[in-house]
Protein backbone atom coordinates (compact mmCIF):
# COMPACT_ATOMS: atom_id res chain seq x y z
CA UNK A 1 0.00 0.00 0.00
CA UNK A 2 1.18 3.52 -0.80
CA UNK A 3 2.32 5.57 2.14
CA UNK A 4 1.54 9.25 2.33
CA UNK A 5 4.25 11.17 0.45
CA UNK A 6 3.05 14.68 1.43
CA UNK A 7 3.28 16.63 4.70
CA UNK A 8 0.11 16.48 6.80
CA UNK A 9 -0.43 20.25 6.82
CA UNK A 10 -0.41 20.37 3.02
CA UNK A 11 -2.90 17.52 2.88
CA UNK A 12 -5.22 19.25 5.35
CA UNK A 13 -5.26 22.33 3.12
CA UNK A 14 -5.97 20.57 -0.13
CA UNK A 15 -7.75 17.29 0.61
CA UNK A 16 -11.34 18.56 0.43
CA UNK A 17 -10.58 20.17 -2.93
CA UNK A 18 -9.08 16.93 -4.26
CA UNK A 19 -12.05 14.93 -2.99
CA UNK A 20 -14.41 17.34 -4.78
CA UNK A 21 -12.29 16.89 -7.92
CA UNK A 22 -12.57 13.08 -7.71
CA UNK A 23 -16.32 13.33 -7.17
CA UNK A 24 -16.52 15.55 -10.27
CA UNK A 25 -15.49 12.46 -12.28
CA UNK A 26 -18.79 10.86 -11.31
CA UNK A 27 -20.67 9.55 -8.29
CA UNK A 28 -18.71 7.03 -6.31
CA UNK A 29 -18.27 5.45 -2.86
CA UNK A 30 -15.86 6.15 0.01
CA UNK A 31 -13.19 3.52 -0.62
CA UNK A 32 -13.18 4.31 -4.34
CA UNK A 33 -12.47 7.97 -3.55
CA UNK A 34 -9.53 6.95 -1.33
CA UNK A 35 -8.21 4.55 -3.98
CA UNK A 36 -8.51 7.16 -6.73
CA UNK A 37 -6.63 9.75 -4.65
CA UNK A 38 -3.92 7.15 -4.04
CA UNK A 39 -3.81 6.38 -7.76
CA UNK A 40 -3.45 10.10 -8.54
CA UNK A 41 -0.40 10.29 -6.28
CA UNK A 42 -1.85 11.82 -3.15
CA UNK A 43 -0.99 8.77 -1.05
CA UNK A 44 -3.11 6.68 1.29
CA UNK A 45 -6.09 8.49 2.76
CA UNK A 46 -7.42 6.62 5.78
CA UNK A 47 -11.12 6.14 6.38
CA UNK A 48 -10.76 8.08 9.63
CA UNK A 49 -9.79 11.17 7.60
CA UNK A 50 -11.98 10.66 4.55
CA UNK A 51 -15.45 10.02 6.01
CA UNK A 52 -15.55 13.00 8.38
CA UNK A 53 -14.49 15.15 5.40
CA UNK A 54 -17.23 13.66 3.21
CA UNK A 55 -19.73 14.26 6.04
CA UNK A 56 -18.65 17.91 6.18
CA UNK A 57 -19.07 18.24 2.41
CA UNK A 58 -22.55 16.71 2.72
CA UNK A 59 -23.44 19.11 5.51
CA UNK A 60 -22.24 22.03 3.39
CA UNK A 61 -24.52 20.85 0.57
CA UNK A 62 -21.60 20.08 -1.73
CA UNK A 63 -22.42 16.38 -2.05
CA UNK A 64 -25.53 14.24 -1.78
CA UNK A 65 -25.50 10.65 -0.58
CA UNK A 66 -27.62 7.58 -0.92
CA UNK A 67 -27.31 3.94 0.04
CA UNK A 68 -27.55 1.13 -2.46
CA UNK A 69 -27.69 -2.61 -1.93
CA UNK A 70 -24.13 -3.98 -2.23
CA UNK A 71 -22.87 -7.13 -3.94
CA UNK A 72 -22.99 -9.79 -1.26
CA UNK A 73 -22.89 -7.08 1.40
CA UNK A 74 -25.48 -5.11 3.28
CA UNK A 75 -25.12 -1.81 1.42
CA UNK A 76 -22.89 0.85 -0.04
CA UNK A 77 -23.01 4.61 0.38
CA UNK A 78 -22.60 6.63 -2.82
CA UNK A 79 -21.53 10.26 -2.95
CA UNK A 80 -22.40 12.62 -5.80
CA UNK A 81 -21.39 16.22 -6.40
CA UNK A 82 -24.18 18.81 -6.29
CA UNK A 83 -24.35 22.00 -8.36
CA UNK A 84 -23.16 23.90 -5.28
CA UNK A 85 -20.29 21.43 -4.92
CA UNK A 86 -19.33 21.90 -8.56
CA UNK A 87 -19.36 25.68 -8.12
CA UNK A 88 -17.27 25.40 -4.94
CA UNK A 89 -14.82 23.13 -6.77
CA UNK A 90 -14.46 25.60 -9.65
CA UNK A 91 -13.94 28.59 -7.35
CA UNK A 92 -11.52 26.86 -5.02
CA UNK A 93 -9.61 25.16 -7.84
CA UNK A 94 -9.10 28.55 -9.50
CA UNK A 95 -7.91 30.10 -6.25
CA UNK A 96 -5.67 27.10 -5.61
CA UNK A 97 -4.04 27.34 -9.05
CA UNK A 98 -3.28 30.99 -8.41
CA UNK A 99 -1.90 30.18 -4.99
CA UNK A 100 0.20 27.29 -6.35
CA UNK A 101 1.59 29.52 -9.12
CA UNK A 102 2.42 32.18 -6.58
CA UNK A 103 4.18 29.70 -4.30
CA UNK A 104 6.07 28.32 -7.27
CA UNK A 105 7.15 31.81 -8.20
CA UNK A 106 8.26 32.68 -4.70
CA UNK A 107 10.20 29.47 -4.18
CA UNK A 108 11.64 29.43 -7.70
CA UNK A 109 12.89 32.98 -7.34
CA UNK A 110 14.64 32.04 -4.14
CA UNK A 111 16.20 28.83 -5.42
CA UNK A 112 16.63 29.18 -9.21
CA UNK A 113 20.02 30.14 -10.76
CA UNK A 114 20.14 33.80 -11.95
CA UNK A 115 19.95 32.78 -15.64
CA UNK A 116 16.34 31.66 -15.32
CA UNK A 117 15.13 34.66 -13.28
CA UNK A 118 13.68 36.41 -16.31
CA UNK A 119 11.62 33.36 -17.24
CA UNK A 120 10.37 33.10 -13.66
CA UNK A 121 9.35 36.77 -13.69
CA UNK A 122 7.38 36.25 -16.86
CA UNK A 123 5.65 33.17 -15.42
CA UNK A 124 4.79 35.06 -12.23
CA UNK A 125 3.24 37.95 -14.14
CA UNK A 126 1.23 35.54 -16.28
CA UNK A 127 -0.01 33.66 -13.20
CA UNK A 128 -0.95 36.77 -11.24
CA UNK A 129 -2.89 38.65 -13.95
CA UNK A 130 -5.99 36.46 -14.50
CA UNK A 131 -6.39 35.54 -10.83
CA UNK A 132 -9.77 36.29 -9.19
CA UNK A 133 -9.39 37.64 -5.66
CA UNK A 134 -5.66 36.92 -5.71
CA UNK A 135 -3.06 39.44 -4.58
CA UNK A 136 -2.11 41.73 -7.45
CA UNK A 137 1.40 41.10 -8.76
CA UNK A 138 4.00 39.14 -6.89
CA UNK A 139 5.33 40.14 -3.52
CA UNK A 140 8.67 41.94 -3.42
CA UNK A 141 11.61 39.63 -3.05
CA UNK A 142 14.40 41.19 -1.01
CA UNK A 143 16.94 38.76 -2.49
CA UNK A 144 16.09 39.57 -6.08
CA UNK A 145 18.66 41.73 -7.92
CA UNK A 146 17.15 45.03 -9.12
Amino acid at each position, binding site marked *: MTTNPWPGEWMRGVLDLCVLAVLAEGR*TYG*YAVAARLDELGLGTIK*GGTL*YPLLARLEEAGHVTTHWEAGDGGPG*RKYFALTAAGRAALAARADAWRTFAALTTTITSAATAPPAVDAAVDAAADAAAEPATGAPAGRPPNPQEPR
Partner: protein
Amino acid sequence: MTTDRPHTRDAHPGSDAAWREELVLALRARDVDGARIGEVLAEVDEHCRASGEDAAEAFGDPAAYAAARTVDEHDPSDRSPRRSPSVRQAVAHLPSLLGLLLVVACAGRTTVPVTVGWLLAAALYPVAATLVVHVVLDAALTGRSRRGLVVAWALLTATSVAALAAVLLLPGVLVTLPRTVALVGGGTLLVAGALVATRSAVRSPDADVVSRPWDDPADVRRRNVRAGVLAAWLLPAMAVVGYAGLTALDAALTALAG
Protein backbone atom coordinates in the same frame (compact mmCIF):
# COMPACT_ATOMS: atom_id res chain seq x y z
CA MET B 1 -11.11 1.92 -12.51
CA THR B 2 -11.05 1.28 -8.80
CA THR B 3 -11.78 -2.20 -7.59
CA ASP B 4 -12.28 -3.35 -4.03
CA ARG B 5 -9.53 -5.38 -2.44
CA PRO B 6 -10.20 -9.08 -1.90
CA HIS B 7 -11.87 -9.77 1.45
CA THR B 8 -9.14 -10.65 3.87
CA ARG B 9 -11.16 -10.46 7.08
CA ASP B 10 -14.48 -11.55 8.46
CA ALA B 11 -17.19 -8.91 8.76
CA HIS B 12 -16.76 -8.58 12.53
CA PRO B 13 -13.67 -10.32 13.91
CA GLY B 14 -13.12 -10.16 17.67
CA SER B 15 -11.00 -7.02 17.86
CA ASP B 16 -13.23 -5.23 15.35
CA ALA B 17 -16.31 -6.09 17.41
CA ALA B 18 -14.67 -4.48 20.45
CA TRP B 19 -13.69 -1.45 18.33
CA ARG B 20 -17.29 -1.07 17.13
CA GLU B 21 -18.64 -1.35 20.67
CA GLU B 22 -16.29 1.43 21.79
CA LEU B 23 -17.35 3.57 18.82
CA VAL B 24 -21.05 3.05 19.59
CA LEU B 25 -20.48 3.93 23.25
CA ALA B 26 -18.45 7.04 22.35
CA LEU B 27 -21.13 8.18 19.87
CA ARG B 28 -23.87 7.52 22.44
CA ALA B 29 -21.91 9.60 24.94
CA ARG B 30 -22.06 12.43 22.38
CA ASP B 31 -25.84 12.04 22.11
CA VAL B 32 -25.75 10.79 18.53
CA ASP B 33 -29.03 9.04 17.71
CA GLY B 34 -29.31 5.37 16.80
CA ALA B 35 -29.95 5.95 13.09
CA ARG B 36 -26.83 8.10 12.72
CA ILE B 37 -24.73 5.62 14.71
CA GLY B 38 -25.98 2.87 12.40
CA GLU B 39 -24.95 4.91 9.37
CA VAL B 40 -21.45 5.54 10.74
CA LEU B 41 -21.10 1.82 11.52
CA ALA B 42 -22.31 0.90 8.04
CA GLU B 43 -19.67 3.22 6.50
CA VAL B 44 -16.99 1.56 8.63
CA ASP B 45 -18.18 -1.93 7.62
CA GLU B 46 -18.34 -1.00 3.96
CA HIS B 47 -14.89 0.63 3.96
CA CYS B 48 -13.27 -2.28 5.82
CA ARG B 49 -14.86 -4.79 3.49
CA ALA B 50 -13.66 -2.87 0.41
CA SER B 51 -10.16 -2.05 1.66
CA GLY B 52 -9.40 -5.27 3.52
CA GLU B 53 -8.27 -3.21 6.52
CA ASP B 54 -9.56 -3.68 10.03
CA ALA B 55 -11.48 -0.87 11.69
CA ALA B 56 -8.65 0.28 13.98
CA GLU B 57 -6.20 0.38 11.05
CA ALA B 58 -8.54 2.39 8.81
CA PHE B 59 -10.27 4.63 11.35
CA GLY B 60 -7.84 4.88 14.28
CA ASP B 61 -8.94 5.27 17.87
CA PRO B 62 -12.76 4.86 18.17
CA ALA B 63 -13.19 7.72 20.67
CA ALA B 64 -11.16 10.06 18.42
CA TYR B 65 -13.16 8.96 15.38
CA ALA B 66 -16.44 9.58 17.24
CA ALA B 67 -15.14 13.06 18.08
CA ALA B 68 -14.20 13.68 14.43
CA ARG B 69 -17.67 12.62 13.29
CA THR B 70 -19.42 14.95 15.69
CA VAL B 71 -17.08 17.94 15.77
CA ASP B 72 -19.39 20.05 13.60
CA GLU B 73 -22.59 18.80 15.21
CA HIS B 74 -21.60 19.32 18.83
CA ASP B 75 -21.27 22.92 19.85
CA PRO B 76 -19.17 23.01 23.04
CA SER B 77 -21.17 26.03 24.23
CA ASP B 78 -24.38 24.02 23.92
CA ARG B 79 -25.70 23.50 27.42
CA SER B 80 -28.83 21.60 26.42
CA PRO B 81 -29.33 18.47 28.51
CA ARG B 82 -27.94 15.21 27.20
CA ARG B 83 -30.20 12.23 26.63
CA SER B 84 -28.30 10.26 29.24
CA PRO B 85 -30.51 9.67 32.30
CA SER B 86 -30.97 12.36 34.90
CA VAL B 87 -31.35 11.79 38.65
CA ARG B 88 -35.00 12.83 38.29
CA GLN B 89 -35.61 10.09 35.70
CA ALA B 90 -33.93 7.55 37.96
CA VAL B 91 -35.95 8.68 40.99
CA ALA B 92 -39.11 8.15 38.90
CA HIS B 93 -38.29 4.44 39.14
CA LEU B 94 -38.19 4.60 42.94
CA PRO B 95 -41.75 3.18 43.48
CA SER B 96 -40.91 0.19 41.25
CA LEU B 97 -37.64 -0.30 43.09
CA LEU B 98 -39.46 -0.25 46.43
CA GLY B 99 -41.87 -2.82 44.99
CA LEU B 100 -38.94 -5.00 43.99
CA LEU B 101 -37.40 -4.80 47.46
CA LEU B 102 -40.74 -5.52 49.14
CA VAL B 103 -41.37 -8.60 47.01
CA VAL B 104 -37.83 -9.93 47.46
CA ALA B 105 -37.99 -9.26 51.23
CA CYS B 106 -41.07 -11.51 51.47
CA ALA B 107 -39.08 -14.62 50.53
CA GLY B 108 -39.02 -17.00 53.49
CA ARG B 109 -40.71 -14.53 55.89
CA THR B 110 -44.12 -14.17 57.46
CA THR B 111 -43.75 -10.44 58.16
CA VAL B 112 -41.68 -7.68 56.55
CA PRO B 113 -40.34 -4.94 58.87
CA VAL B 114 -39.83 -1.70 56.92
CA THR B 115 -37.04 0.29 58.61
CA VAL B 116 -35.60 3.77 58.06
CA GLY B 117 -32.32 2.25 56.92
CA TRP B 118 -34.14 -0.02 54.50
CA LEU B 119 -35.91 2.95 52.81
CA LEU B 120 -32.67 4.94 52.67
CA ALA B 121 -30.89 1.98 51.08
CA ALA B 122 -33.66 1.70 48.48
CA ALA B 123 -33.28 5.40 47.61
CA LEU B 124 -29.50 5.13 47.18
CA TYR B 125 -29.61 2.76 44.22
CA PRO B 126 -31.37 4.96 41.60
CA VAL B 127 -28.92 7.77 42.38
CA ALA B 128 -25.97 5.39 42.14
CA ALA B 129 -27.30 3.91 38.87
CA THR B 130 -27.54 7.40 37.34
CA LEU B 131 -24.00 8.22 38.43
CA VAL B 132 -22.71 4.94 36.99
CA VAL B 133 -24.27 5.66 33.59
CA HIS B 134 -22.76 9.14 33.55
CA VAL B 135 -19.33 7.82 34.54
CA VAL B 136 -19.39 5.15 31.83
CA LEU B 137 -20.52 7.62 29.14
CA ASP B 138 -18.03 10.29 30.15
CA ALA B 139 -15.24 7.69 30.12
CA ALA B 140 -16.30 6.65 26.62
CA LEU B 141 -16.01 10.29 25.46
CA THR B 142 -12.33 10.32 26.30
CA GLY B 143 -11.63 6.77 25.18
CA ARG B 144 -11.11 5.53 28.74
CA SER B 145 -13.87 2.93 28.79
CA ARG B 146 -11.92 0.48 30.94
CA ARG B 147 -11.23 3.13 33.58
CA GLY B 148 -14.90 4.10 33.45
CA LEU B 149 -15.93 0.51 34.19
CA VAL B 150 -13.54 0.34 37.14
CA VAL B 151 -14.97 3.59 38.56
CA ALA B 152 -18.50 2.28 37.92
CA TRP B 153 -17.78 -0.93 39.84
CA ALA B 154 -16.22 1.08 42.66
CA LEU B 155 -19.34 3.28 42.80
CA LEU B 156 -21.66 0.28 42.93
CA THR B 157 -19.57 -1.35 45.64
CA ALA B 158 -19.55 1.87 47.68
CA THR B 159 -23.33 2.14 47.26
CA SER B 160 -23.83 -1.43 48.45
CA VAL B 161 -21.62 -0.79 51.49
CA ALA B 162 -23.53 2.45 52.25
CA ALA B 163 -26.87 0.65 51.83
CA LEU B 164 -25.78 -2.15 54.16
CA ALA B 165 -24.56 0.41 56.71
CA ALA B 166 -27.89 2.25 56.49
CA VAL B 167 -29.82 -0.98 57.12
CA LEU B 168 -27.61 -1.95 60.08
CA LEU B 169 -27.26 1.52 61.66
CA LEU B 170 -30.85 2.71 61.21
CA PRO B 171 -32.93 -0.25 62.44
CA GLY B 172 -35.93 1.81 63.60
CA VAL B 173 -39.04 0.01 62.34
CA LEU B 174 -41.53 2.33 60.61
CA VAL B 175 -44.10 -0.35 59.92
CA THR B 176 -44.29 -4.13 59.96
CA LEU B 177 -46.20 -5.52 57.01
CA PRO B 178 -47.77 -8.98 56.85
CA ARG B 179 -46.25 -11.07 54.09
CA THR B 180 -49.39 -10.99 51.92
CA VAL B 181 -49.71 -7.20 52.18
CA ALA B 182 -46.04 -6.70 51.34
CA LEU B 183 -46.27 -9.13 48.42
CA VAL B 184 -49.45 -7.59 46.98
CA GLY B 185 -48.25 -4.03 47.66
CA GLY B 186 -44.84 -4.67 46.12
CA GLY B 187 -46.35 -6.52 43.17
CA THR B 188 -48.82 -3.69 42.58
CA LEU B 189 -46.06 -1.07 42.58
CA LEU B 190 -44.04 -3.17 40.14
CA VAL B 191 -46.88 -3.96 37.75
CA ALA B 192 -48.26 -0.41 37.83
CA GLY B 193 -44.81 1.01 37.03
CA ALA B 194 -44.32 -1.52 34.24
CA LEU B 195 -47.76 -0.80 32.73
CA VAL B 196 -47.17 2.96 32.72
CA ALA B 197 -43.74 2.45 31.09
CA THR B 198 -45.21 0.01 28.54
CA ARG B 199 -47.94 2.48 27.57
CA SER B 200 -45.32 5.19 27.12
CA ALA B 201 -43.05 2.86 25.10
CA VAL B 202 -45.89 1.92 22.73
CA ARG B 203 -47.23 5.44 22.23
CA SER B 204 -43.94 7.33 21.86
CA PRO B 205 -40.94 5.01 22.08
CA ASP B 206 -38.14 6.50 24.14
CA ALA B 207 -35.71 3.75 23.16
CA ASP B 208 -33.35 4.53 20.29
CA VAL B 209 -31.88 1.32 18.89
CA VAL B 210 -28.99 1.42 16.42
CA SER B 211 -30.45 0.99 12.93
CA ARG B 212 -28.85 0.71 9.51
CA PRO B 213 -29.70 3.13 6.68
CA TRP B 214 -31.48 0.42 4.70
CA ASP B 215 -33.64 -0.75 7.61
CA ASP B 216 -37.40 -0.39 7.24
CA PRO B 217 -38.54 2.57 9.44
CA ALA B 218 -41.58 0.56 10.60
CA ASP B 219 -39.25 -2.24 11.68
CA VAL B 220 -36.98 0.26 13.51
CA ARG B 221 -40.04 1.60 15.37
CA ARG B 222 -41.09 -1.94 16.28
CA ARG B 223 -37.59 -2.59 17.67
CA ASN B 224 -37.71 0.65 19.67
CA VAL B 225 -41.10 -0.34 21.12
CA ARG B 226 -39.83 -3.84 21.92
CA ALA B 227 -36.74 -2.43 23.66
CA GLY B 228 -38.92 -0.03 25.68
CA VAL B 229 -41.36 -2.78 26.71
CA LEU B 230 -38.53 -5.12 27.69
CA ALA B 231 -36.96 -2.36 29.82
CA ALA B 232 -40.37 -1.68 31.41
CA TRP B 233 -40.68 -5.28 32.60
CA LEU B 234 -37.09 -5.65 33.75
CA LEU B 235 -37.75 -4.85 37.43
CA PRO B 236 -40.82 -7.17 37.69
CA ALA B 237 -38.73 -9.94 36.09
CA MET B 238 -35.93 -9.29 38.59
CA ALA B 239 -38.47 -9.44 41.43
CA VAL B 240 -39.78 -12.83 40.28
CA VAL B 241 -36.27 -14.25 39.88
CA GLY B 242 -35.12 -12.79 43.21
CA TYR B 243 -38.20 -14.01 45.07
CA ALA B 244 -37.98 -17.52 43.54
CA GLY B 245 -34.23 -17.77 44.18
CA LEU B 246 -34.42 -16.64 47.81
CA THR B 247 -37.46 -18.85 48.50
CA ALA B 248 -35.61 -21.86 47.08
CA LEU B 249 -32.51 -20.98 49.10
CA ASP B 250 -34.58 -20.62 52.27
CA ALA B 251 -36.28 -23.96 51.64
CA ALA B 252 -32.92 -25.63 51.05
CA LEU B 253 -31.45 -24.17 54.26
CA THR B 254 -34.55 -25.24 56.24
CA ALA B 255 -34.27 -28.77 54.83
CA LEU B 256 -30.58 -28.91 55.74
CA ALA B 257 -31.25 -27.64 59.26
CA GLY B 258 -34.10 -30.11 59.72
